[in-house]
């Protein structure tokens, strides 16, 4: 096994370990039903985290994810109440996500400002726009939405793969293709590894940066669409602090926050680990929900330390 797969292997091992611990302690835990729930209930976090993986691989960060999810949701709900077709609204919102992300990427590269600050501005801007659109939770009542929600593929056992899980898995496959089989994907890793050498090697850094944030914006908006359809409503506070869960999923998935090292597939397992921890604590039923945050935090610490160790002892950055 190539050493670049070590972080991914560690993530999958932790995922399986938590799943088995749950199965040993609680009835009905080690089932396809729970697996299907985790895929569906975390689909929007994982979709957003897939976009964030590209951003983080390039050495950047995107804090506007949660607000984008909230904004897309309220727009979908309000436009639905004005009689728009949800598919049309979804397409409009995806285009908006791409443009907004591209704008953030352009400002980051053109003005040479920290992505943290630019996307923090994006976070406030979009959240403020949510409140301009509506202050209430607005239902989405289109027939198509009810149909979408009822699509499912049966899994062996009682589990089902719900529509939001299917959308998530398809977008994951697309992202894996982009990351590992396109020139753009190699450019992302190159910029994250060493920006200057990437430039010297002939990577157009500005164009790539704009594309990276546009891709991030697309995935955030897609997460917003999935979230809105999943709850069949728009709520101006929806998705707050979700960007932090997405970043946590990326890091648990084995991507280095300093950029250049990581895999999109890991993000899937990172997101599922977060979901698994919540589910485990709900199954227990008597633990304070603060334990969800505490155990996620401890796990994050452990992973960051482990990555540090893997990078220094196996020279992962050079492996690319």
């Amino acid at each position, binding site marked *: 096994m190539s050493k670049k797969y070590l972080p991914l292997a560690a993530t999958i091992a932790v995922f399986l370990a938590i799943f088995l611990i749950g199965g040993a302690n*609680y*009835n*009905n*835990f080690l*089932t396809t*039903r*729970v697996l299907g*729930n985790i895929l*569906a*209930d975390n689909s*929007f976090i994982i979709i957003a985290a897939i976009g964030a993986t590209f951003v983080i691989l390039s050495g950047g960060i995107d804090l506007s994810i949660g607000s984008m999810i909230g904004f897309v949701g309220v727009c979908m709900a309000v436009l639905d109440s004005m009689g728009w077709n949800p598919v049309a609204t979804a397409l409009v919102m995806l285009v908006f996500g791409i443009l907004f992300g591209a704008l953030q990427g352009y400002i980051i590269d053109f003005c040479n400002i920290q992505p943290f600050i630019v996307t923090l501005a994006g976070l406030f801007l979009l959240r403020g726009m949510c409140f301009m659109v509506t202050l209430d*939770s*607005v*239902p989405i*009542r289109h027939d198509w939405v*009810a149909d979408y*929600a009822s699509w499912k593929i049966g899994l062996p056992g009682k589990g089902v793969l719900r529509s939001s899980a299917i959308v998530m898995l398809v977008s994951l496959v697309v992202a894996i293709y982009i990351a590992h089989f396109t020139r753009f994907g190699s450019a992302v890793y190159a910029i994250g590894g060493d920006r200057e050498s990437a430039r010297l090697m002939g990577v157009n850094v500005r164009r790539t940066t704009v594309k990276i944030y546009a891709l991030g914006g697309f995935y955030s908006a897609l997460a917003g669409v999935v*979230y809105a359809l*999943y*709850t*069949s*409503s728009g*709520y101006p506070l*929806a998705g707050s602090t979700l960007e932090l869960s997405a970043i946590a999923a990326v890091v648990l998935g084995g991507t280095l926050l300093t950029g250049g090292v990581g895999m999109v597939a890991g993000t899937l397992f990172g997101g599922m680990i977060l*979901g698994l921890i*919540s*589910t485990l*604590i*709900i*199954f*227990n*039923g*008597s633990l*304070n*929900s603060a334990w969800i945050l505490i155990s996620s935090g401890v796990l994050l610490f452990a992973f960051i330390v482990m990555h540090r160790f893997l990078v220094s002892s196996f020279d992962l950055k050079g492996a690319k």
Partner: protein
Amino acid sequence: MSLKKIIAAAIVSSSAIIAGTASAQTIGFSQVGSEGDWRPAFSANMQETASDYGVDLKFANAQGKQEEQLRAVRAFIAQGVDAIIIAPVVVTGWDQVLQEAKEAEIPVFLVDRDVDVEDKSLYVTRISADFNLEGRLAGAWLAAESLGDCKIVELQGTTGSAPAIERNGGFQAVIDQFPAMEIVATQSGDFTTEGGKRVMEAFIKSTNNLEGICASFAHNDNMQLGAIQAMKEAGLNPGEDVLMVSVDYVPAIMDAIAAGDANASVELRSAVGEFIYPVILDYLENPRELDKWIVIPSDLHTAN
């Protein structure tokens, strides 16, 4: 220990387990979060009284997030609980998950807030207090105390919130029956002590030290406590010069009532397990159509 004894013990203990699982109902409770004073007390009461009713309560706190509530409800369904209680974060977005609960034949009960679903058969009933009734009780007490002749200042809750709208509506409906009763000034104090103090200070200025005012009606105790402070600072005597009535019955207002600074408070119960569990257990034993809203009674407390 002989083999016989071991087998006997095993039989006894396993039959005890079977008996235990047969009588104990597992109920999942998805709570909104832990904001304010009332909600944590409500959660604690639900957890503490569960064992009195032989209920194994699975408690999940959603930290104010709907996605966490949906996750909790799905986990309860996967776990195969006997019933699910939801105190919803928001009114929309429940159709799909309630449908899943229905397909799994798990009855769902709402407590506290309502949900906005097209198919009302997706939940059994909502068990909660009636804010409108609280307003009517306060109004009725004031009408009796003032013999139907009273000019009132009102400290409203957060503008547009359900408790503010409904407590005002219930109160107004009762005093409308009495021609000499009217609300002469009303303002929002946002349910906070500081807000109540600020609003009462404004009232004191605008009415020349509350001249001719016979009562202060606050939508919650915290605002009333702020109002009491403002009145004392202006040299007025709350509870004697002006009748003080509010809603919630928190410990601080009990002290104020005992000290004579406040006169009455309508209790918003946090100890509601004794109302909620019997309804659910009775339904599980004998499933049938229930009213879509079961009201938890409110009591008015005074000094005596």
